[in-house]
């Protein structure tokens, strides 16, 4: 595996904590086989019935530790959310959480993860979309779930995933003029140069003999 070049020209893991060995591989997740058992079948069947583009939109179905995960083709995420929210036998009314994960060793390394809750049926589901760092675009779900507004902004801020169609996709936690996306795995841990009273303070990793 080749190490990707990091932000700010960082090479290697970017780890300056002295703990080392932070290159990690994601273990293979096995696809779930039908029948999935329990209510998982009901949900997947209902989605398949209500959504004509099911076969093209769903990449994989994974069940792990009693949690159902659907891997969605990024371009289709808003459509799938719309069906999941509106279909009477699915009824995922609440979008609990939107966040990101950076699986740095993968080709499509940036994942947007959605946790939806059906208050009617008391079920949860996880949707996952994988995009590349070179083209990190997928549609925004704010038109379906207005609550995704800030959460998508946070995901953009932290991972650089761009949600097309978002009304105001700006940074939310980091300052507006910040460079880079801090939650990416190749973001330099030692920090970035900080300008203070005209003088530039270099980050620790170039001050100390870490490497």
């Amino acid at each position, binding site marked *: 595996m080749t190490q990707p070049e990091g932000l700010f020209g960082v090479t290697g893991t970017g*780890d300056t*904590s002295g*703990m080392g060995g*932070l290159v*990690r*591989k*994601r*273990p293979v*997740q096995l696809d779930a086989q039908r029948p999935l058992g329990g209510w998982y079948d009901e949900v997947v069947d209902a989605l398949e019935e209500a959504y004509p583009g099911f076969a093209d939109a769903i990449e994989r179905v994974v069940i*792990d*530790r009693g*949690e159902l*995960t659907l891997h969605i083709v990024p371009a289709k995420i808003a459509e799938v959310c719309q069906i999941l929210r509106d279909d009477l036998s699915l009824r995922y*009314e*609440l*979008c*609990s*959480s939107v*966040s990101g*994960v*950076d699986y740095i060793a993968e080709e499509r390394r940036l994942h947007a*993860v959605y*946790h939806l*809750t059906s*208050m009617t049926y*008391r079920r*949860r589901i*996880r949707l996952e979309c994988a995009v590349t760092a070179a083209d990190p675009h997928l549609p925004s779900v704010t038109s379906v*779930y*207005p*609550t995704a*507004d*800030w*959460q998508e902004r*946070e995901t953009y801020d932290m991972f650089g995933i761009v949600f097309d169609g978002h009304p105001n996709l700006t*940074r*939310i*936690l*980091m*300052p507006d003029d910040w460079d880079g996306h*801090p*939650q990416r795995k190749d973001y330099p*841990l030692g920090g970035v140069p900080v300008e203070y009273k005209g003088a530039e303070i270099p980050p620790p990793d170039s001050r100390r003999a870490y490497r």
Partner: protein
Amino acid sequence: MSSNAGYAQERETTEGKVFTVTGGDWDSIVSGVDPMHDERIVVNMGPQHPSTHGVLRLVLEMEGETVTEARLVVGYLHTGIEKNMEYRTWTQGSTFVTRMDYLAPIFNETAYSLAVEKLLGIEDQITERANTIRVLMMELNRISSHLVWLATTGMELGALSMMIYGFREREFILDIFEMITGLRMNMAYVRPGGVAQDVPDTAIVKIREFLDFMPKRIKEYEDLLSGQPIWTARTKGVAVLDVTGCVALGVTGPVLRSSGLAWDLRKTMPYCGYETYDFDVPTQPEGDVFARYLVRLAEMRESLKIIEQALDRLKPGPVMVEDRKIAWPAQLALGTDGLGNSLEHVAHIMGQSMESLIHHFKLVTEGFRVPAGQVYVPIEGPRGELGAHVISDGGTRPFRVHMREPSFVNLQAIPAMAEGGLLADVIAGGASLDPVMGGCDR
């Protein structure tokens, strides 16, 4: 008459010039000199403002006293907790999450610990006593968090004495926390596998004392506020948000319940054995600030019921999982300066058993490994759904931890509640969401 006709008339007297400002068409005069006469103004409230509960900035576009547009700016308290956790062991994670929502530390720890336990597949091994202590601590924490809400909201809406009473009772709960965990807040008490140490008998006595006087105190708050004309004028019909608005904006917790939907994860998706406790989920139909106040008062009463039941079923037993590969190796002892390793344990590993020393060293420095996978564990925090999305790659440190913070999500509702209302109602509406910026910004 002087040359500046249209302005105040002046005349000379023995004491100097005297102006007479009666009469005249002042509207036309003012519109001539004031370029802002007909324009909207933008008010920047915060980030340093007593009623913004920390560092929250509100950008309000005003027309007179009416807010036409409200925009929120957050992030001033961002400390990168989630990123930091990726470089610390699973056990150390407790110490980080407890600092997120600093008014509800026990909830953060429990959500995180439940997620790690689900990844480890040891949910069934958590001892009954540990589960009961978690419930006990969470409900105490829920009351202390609601008390701070009541106190600060009272202060912001002009009921200053409520602040003193609210903090007085909260102090009592913090004393209980100190007896049990050694710390008043940020205790890192609930840990993956159980809790850090057992509840001492003295604390049980103190909790009983609390259960004894607290119902009377809640009645006092109710007597103080519910019929109070200023309080009702500032809260009734103010910052209304209905069920549709709440669900669309992802608002959960007391705010959702005060608009009529009895959605409480302790009932709807139970954890920690909540299904075995007898309590009600209070709701109100109105969806205004007053309803949120009533719901929180009622929730404190329900929490007292749960605490009483938890105390009754507290049987002696271990508070950590049996598995020595996960359980913290040290025996903790409570000293005058907080929790620390017991001297006995130190003597044992340093003087008697080499194996114990190795075991201690491995577990403390390297930590335990957690099988790869991801889980999302939501619990009912004092502010709503608090979810821990935790991912492991099989290592001794989390691959990624994301906390779904109710403060962060709920704050999005402020424009929906405030636009079209008065500036003073922004304060009431914002306070009624009970945002904690440490949780919001993480």
